[in-house]
């Protein structure tokens, strides 16, 4: 019991320190500072990576549709929150669009300007999540019967179809066709992102440790045994798919907030691959790993390693080698090294509290000795 208590305290302390650091960053740095940008982007990626991990890591369903669900969330958020006054300019080719209201403004009408807008924004995020969940339900009916790699390719295909629909000019009055959605309200500071994503991740964590989460893991470990032990495969797979998509949808909405503009183009399969590789780096089956890997990945790619692309890195000036694309080349080499030689990723299947657990340390030493 004391171990459990220790773990709880350890986790609480770490999380509190992180949150405090984030608040300090917000108070001392302007919103356009690269540190704030990195935190915002990394938090969004963390949420999506965790949602993908729920499906791929904990339920063993290899789905590559994450970008599609993010797209839905992002569009739902953008379409519903653009201020009425800005509609004419955003939907310049579509006569101001087909949706004559803005949800945050409606909420602002009876909750007051600040509170109402924030509530409206959160509400629209939720709608985005629900829309993604609904779509997951519909897609899941036929697709979830497929086996591993077929499922992957079918979900990938679905995301591509969705993208074509959102760029279709006939839907322009809602989606603005190929043109950007913009001018919608966003959170400038990093703390709201951290709190929001943290909350969502906490919910996913609770789910994973509940009886349903255990059933998901049973399906991952052995489908046949799980079914024989009374776990309804179709129902539980669908449930995992819908829940994962819901959070991917919310992640998409937050991504829209972070980017400030929405287009369908960024939500390509390459985005899904990027998230998948983050999950792999962090460790398939570890929430902490996914979060950690998101921050590492975004921090290095957006900030730390930028020098690799622009001539100078660590004081070495070599424009012939440190030119465009070197950063990503180095990155993909690292990823391949992880995929091939460190298959468990940073965290394996451990979580934050396990780091102080002597049991895991012992095991590790044993493993090392075994080698």
């Amino acid at each position, binding site marked *: 019991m004391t171990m459990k208590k220790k773990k709880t305290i350890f986790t609480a302390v770490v999380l509190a320190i992180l949150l405090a650091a984030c608040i300090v960053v917000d108070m001392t740095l302007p919103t356009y500072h690269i540190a704030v940008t990195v935190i915002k982007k990394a938090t969004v990626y963390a949420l999506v990576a965790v949602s993908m991990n729920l499906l791929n890591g904990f339920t063993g369903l290899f789905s590559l549709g994450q970008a599609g669900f993010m797209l839905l969330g992002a569009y739902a958020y953008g379409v519903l929150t653009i201020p009425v006054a800005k509609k004419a300019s955003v939907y310049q080719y579509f006569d101001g669009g087909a949706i004559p209201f803005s949800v945050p403004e409606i909420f602002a009408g009876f909750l007051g300007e600040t509170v109402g807008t924030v509530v409206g924004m959160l509400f629209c995020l939720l709608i985005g999540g629900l829309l993604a969940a609904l779509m997951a339900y519909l897609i899941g009916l036929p697709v979830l019967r497929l086996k591993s790699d077929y499922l992957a390719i079918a979900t990938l295909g679905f995301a591509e179809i969705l993208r074509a629909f959102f760029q279709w000019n006939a839907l322009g009055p809602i989606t603005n066709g190929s043109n950007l959605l913009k001018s919608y309200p966003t959170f400038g500071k990093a703390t709201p992102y951290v709190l929001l994503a943290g909350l969502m991740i906490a*919910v996913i964590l*609770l*789910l994973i440790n*509940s*009886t*349903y989460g*255990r*059933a998901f*893991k*049973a399906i*991952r*470990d*052995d489908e*046949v*045994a*799980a*079914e*024989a*032990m*009374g*776990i*309804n*495969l*179709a129902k539980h797979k669908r*449930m995992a798919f819908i*829940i994962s998509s819901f959070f991917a949808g919310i992640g998409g909405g937050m991504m829209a907030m972070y980017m400030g503009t929405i287009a369908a183009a960024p939500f390509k399969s390459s985005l899904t691959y990027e998230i998948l590789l983050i999950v792999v780096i962090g460790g398939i*089956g570890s929430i902490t790993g996914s979060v950690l890997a998101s921050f590492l990945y975004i921090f290095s790619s957006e900030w730390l390693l930028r020098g690799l692309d622009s001539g100078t890195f660590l004081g070495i000036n070599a424009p012939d080698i440190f030119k465009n694309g070197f950063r990503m080349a180095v990155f993909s080499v690292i990823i391949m090294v992880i995929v091939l030689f460190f298959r468990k990723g940073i965290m394996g*299947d451990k979580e934050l509290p396990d780091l102080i657990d002597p049991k895991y340390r012992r095991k590790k030493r044993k493993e090392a000795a075994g080698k």
Partner: protein
Amino acid sequence: MSKSVLKIENATMQFGGVVAVDNLNLEINEGEIVALIGPNGAGKTTAFNVTTGVYQPTNGAVWFCGEKVIENHPQGKMKKLYKGEHDGEYTHVLAPTPDKITKMGMARTFQNIRLWKSQTVFDNVLIAKHCRATSNVFSATFRLNRKEEARQRQEVLELLEVVGLADVKDELATSLPYGKQRRLEIARALAAEPKLLLLDEPAAGMNPQETDELTAFIGEIRDKFHLTIFLIEHHMNLVMNISDRIYVLDFGKLIAEGTPTEIQNNKRVIDAYLGVAEDA
């Protein structure tokens, strides 16, 4: 004592042109331990799979506790290919998935151990309790089901105590020795709270001492949990010691049925096991 728990009625399982189980009829009554034996490839595991819903029989029905739970008749291509008997007697299709069968009160183990490898002993058993949980995904996620969860955990602890795995409850299931893994699989099946327990070669790979222990164990749990047990086994010691009745399968067909003594003296059974010389 005479209440029927499981009744397999005219079940035929045909894969393409191969008849794996041919017109199988058997009945198991409450509290019995019944064994299904036969040479390798006789169709024993297939019969299990038909009973538990893994395969849908080509023709025939399965009754559980007086209710018809599985029924099928040849359809599509099978109509022409069907080689079994009782064609046309069954007209309905009733094909529940294995999880539904388990919820009705049948739980099984596997010939080749299928534990959840990344889970601890405790969690392996706890997961099997999932099918008895009444909470929905929301109440479970937000811990509104605390009472149920606590009760289930308590039950699992007690169960592990009974099967003698309490001391290793936090070990990974795969780190257990072979015999204990077998035991854990039985414990997991018990956690699903079955009326009928199906054991697929529970003693496979065990030495005589372990087999004896298992024999005693099976008897124990039958009494303790008021179970009916249906098992497949090759260890004749175990079968003869604990079975109330035995069914013998060869080439998919039932060739004998009776008490252990009757079976031991049945000529067809001996022939099936030892082979018959063509010109004898």
